[in-house]
């Protein structure tokens, strides 16, 4: 397998670090290794780096540097945001709202708060993984202190209308804070917290070609939030602990690289996504999750000509593009009826193609994915669904090769299924 070119389509699990990021981090570790709190020159140098990283993020998010906090990752950002905001507003109310398709870092933090006496509403989603706005509106009460909704779902790539949701929340209860888990969406779609009424936002570094063990939390201007770890009072006392300078510099560099040509990359990813979807739909019985096709389009996508390719007229082509554009550009969830995801995954692996069954964060648990259940996926497909997630490194050739391998292996696997 070593001489085979690897095709890495598991970028929602983690990404390859940009070489320039790795170089920068090496230099920070070997040269600019000071503690930003130190008073001497080494400290000042490090503080400059820290400031520079904050500038990069405040530039991307169009906010002030003081809104930027660095953490150990998406999970910690989610924990600080949710626990910190919920406890700070405890006297005003103890009601929180989230969705059924959140990442475990949010769901399990909410569960923890439930055990501490908070009430949590878990909003349902439609069959494409979109939050039902009327349900959200009905759920917000005067006691609701925080709503936490993810930007892009990590398993099916559904992308919430964050701006609309933000506006709705503030209209129902201006005091309610809005937290967005943007771990999957950051660097893929533009997100401006102030414009979208976002008060708190979590970002992870290793999903954007930065190092692991690094995250960012945006905290809006007037947001009251309690720390959850205590120590030397770094970062305004919200996140004590000597700043992880190599990580911070690396993550900022990665974010800068990615966001400077975000639009261009996203367009390219959407094209690849369309290519993969069309390629997969050519195969018998295959189903795409999280993309809203009209019945008409669905029927057309199933019609194949003699050579087994799909030909769409211009309107349908437009419709397909529009449907895909409503979702995240990099995640495609595909169900292969009758074939266990793990088997398909290892089959692809034999050809050097790396994908994920459900989400990598939950594959070591035997329970089926909560997200797939929430979108009402047929029971028989829960264990037959793979996630393909692309990055800026992904090429057309790689997608074509993947589709070719699927086409090649599918008949054999469909033959040997559990009877």
């Amino acid at each position, binding site marked *: 397998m070593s001489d085979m070119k690897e095709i890495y389509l598991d970028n929602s699990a983690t990404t390859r670090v940009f070489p320039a990021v790795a170089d920068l981090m090496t230099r920070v570790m070997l040269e600019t290794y000071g503690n930003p709190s130190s008073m001497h020159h080494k400290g000042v140098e490090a503080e400059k780096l820290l400031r520079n990283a904050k500038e990069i993020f405040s530039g991307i998010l169009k906010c002030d540097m003081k809104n930027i906090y660095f953490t150990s990752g998406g999970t910690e950002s989610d924990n600080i945001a949710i626990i910190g905001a919920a406890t700070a507003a405890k006297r005003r109310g103890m009601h929180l709202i989230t969705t059924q398709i959140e990442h475990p870092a949010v769901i399990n933090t909410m569960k923890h708060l439930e055990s501490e006496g908070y009430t949590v509403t878990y909003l349902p989603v439609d069959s494409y993984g979109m939050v039902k706005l009327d349900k959200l509106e009905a759920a917000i009460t005067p006691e609701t202190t925080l709503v936490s909704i993810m930007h892009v779902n990590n398993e099916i790539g559904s992308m919430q209308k964050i701006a609309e949701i933000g506006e709705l929340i503030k209209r129902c209860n201006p005091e309610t804070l809005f937290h967005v888990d943007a771990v999957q969406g950051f660097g893929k779609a533009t997100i401006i917290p102030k414009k979208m009424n976002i008060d708190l936002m979590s970002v992870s570094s290793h999903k954007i070609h930065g190092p692991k063990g690094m995250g960012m939390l945006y905290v809006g201007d007037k947001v009251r939030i309690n720390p959850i770890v205590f120590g030397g009072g770094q970062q305004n006392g919200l996140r004590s602990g000597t700043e992880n300078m190599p990580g911070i510099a690396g993550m900022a560099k990665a974010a800068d690289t990615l966001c400077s040509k975000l639009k261009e990359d996203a367009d390219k990813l959407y094209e690849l996504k369309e290519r993969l979807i069309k390629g997969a739909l050519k195969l018998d019985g295959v189903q795409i999750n999280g993309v809203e096709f009209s019945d008409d389009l669905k029927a057309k996508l199933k019609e194949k000509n003699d050579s087994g390719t799909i030909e769409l007229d211009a309107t349908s082509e437009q419709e397909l593009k529009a449907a895909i554009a409503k979702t995240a550009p990099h995640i495609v969830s595909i169900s292969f009826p009758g074939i266990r995801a793990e088997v398909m995954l290892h089959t692809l692996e034999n050809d050097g193609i790396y994908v994920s069954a459900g989400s990598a964060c939950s594959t070591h648990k035997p329970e089926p994915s909560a997200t797939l259940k929430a979108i009402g996926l047929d029971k028989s497909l829960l264990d037959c669904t793979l996630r393909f997630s692309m990055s800026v490194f992904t090429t057309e050739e790689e997608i074509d090769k993947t589709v070719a391998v699927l086409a090649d292996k599918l008949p054999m696997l469909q033959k040997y299924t*559990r009877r």
Partner: protein
Amino acid sequence: MKKEMFCDFLIKYAEIGIKGKNRYLFEDALVARIKHAMTKVDGEFSIRKTPGRIFLRSESEFDFDEAIDALQHVFGIVGICPIVRLDIVDPETLAQKVTDYMREMYGAELCGTGITAQQAVEIMKENGFDADSASDAISDEVYGKLRWQEIYPSIKRNPAETIRFKMMVRRERKGYPKDSMVLNEDIGEALLNAFPGLKVDVHHPEKIVYVEIRDSIYLYSEIIPGPGGMPVGTGGHGMLLLSGGIDSPVAGYMVSKRGVTIDAVYFNAPPYTSERALQKVVDLATIISKYTGPINLHVINFTEIQMAIYEKCPHDELTIIMRRYMMRIAEHLAEECGAQGLITGESIGQVASQTFASLVCTNEVCTLPVIRPLIAFDKQDIVEISQKIGSYETSIQPYEDCCTIFVAKHPVTKPSRTVIRRHEAHLDDVIEDMLKTAYETDTVIRVGE
């Protein structure tokens, strides 16, 4: 017990002792196994074999618990006694030394009520001693007779809480001035005088104080249980069919306990089973290798054979036919490496392929004996052993093995040998080549070195 008192251990073994002229073989094997086990413990250890006794001595700093844990993984050991070694001294000094030993070893337990030092301090405080002098007394002299008698009457003694003990002196060195009977009495009396909480009970003692007078004098009173069994290497060689489940590691452990050297075979079925399933099996082999010594784990690629069976044979017989090929392959590997039989974790009726009728079907394909140590065990009993030997947590990781991936909803439970043979014949054209490929691609992983 004060662990830091000890740097010598007496190793007790049982069954070897009753072997005849070849007894030295068993003892040498045990010494070799102990040596191997101790190489994994930090520190320098020396082993000395004397007639009927094996002594282990630490020549450097070491961790008591780590050393005991290593010894508790050596089959053949029934007991590990931490001993204090004394030079030969006169009987009076000996009685004094034994008293010192007991004081250091059990402290407050011997003070009359089975109370701890902390409780003793509390009681003393209640009886008018100030806190400082109470704890001073405990730390320095409370166990010494004089000071203790001063304190003692203030504590209501519950006779039921005394420790019943017995002296057990052995005098191998016949020139020693007093014989064992006299020494039992003298030392026992010295202990009774020193500790009000002791009481002699020769029939049901809680503590036996052993004094062995040999080239030196050895004192001990605790026997830490060993795993029992026979030293690995003295009982032949078996090939274990190791899956990722709960049973097969236990089966390997149990047979190895009778002195059998173990090698193992695992049937891998990529892409239906994952790299992690294989890793799990390697982990399981590593866990049992702590008892069995190093294991050669054969990894056989079984996918092709399994697919052929799936395609050509009735689906409800898939598992049985698959098991038959596993047995054949295992037997082939056993013969190649000189193993004298197969070992499986089968237990009657546990699953369809382990009913009596199914076992008859899988058994007939090999001529080597198949040892099934768990054959009459209930699942719960097997689980308990796997928890004891530490394989359970690994066994229950949720990775599929090749036995479960294609399993039929209703597999046969009463297969007939004739029918199975007839259906198996469908594979005749292809199976020889497939077996050949399987043997050629056999990968051996050495674990537990």
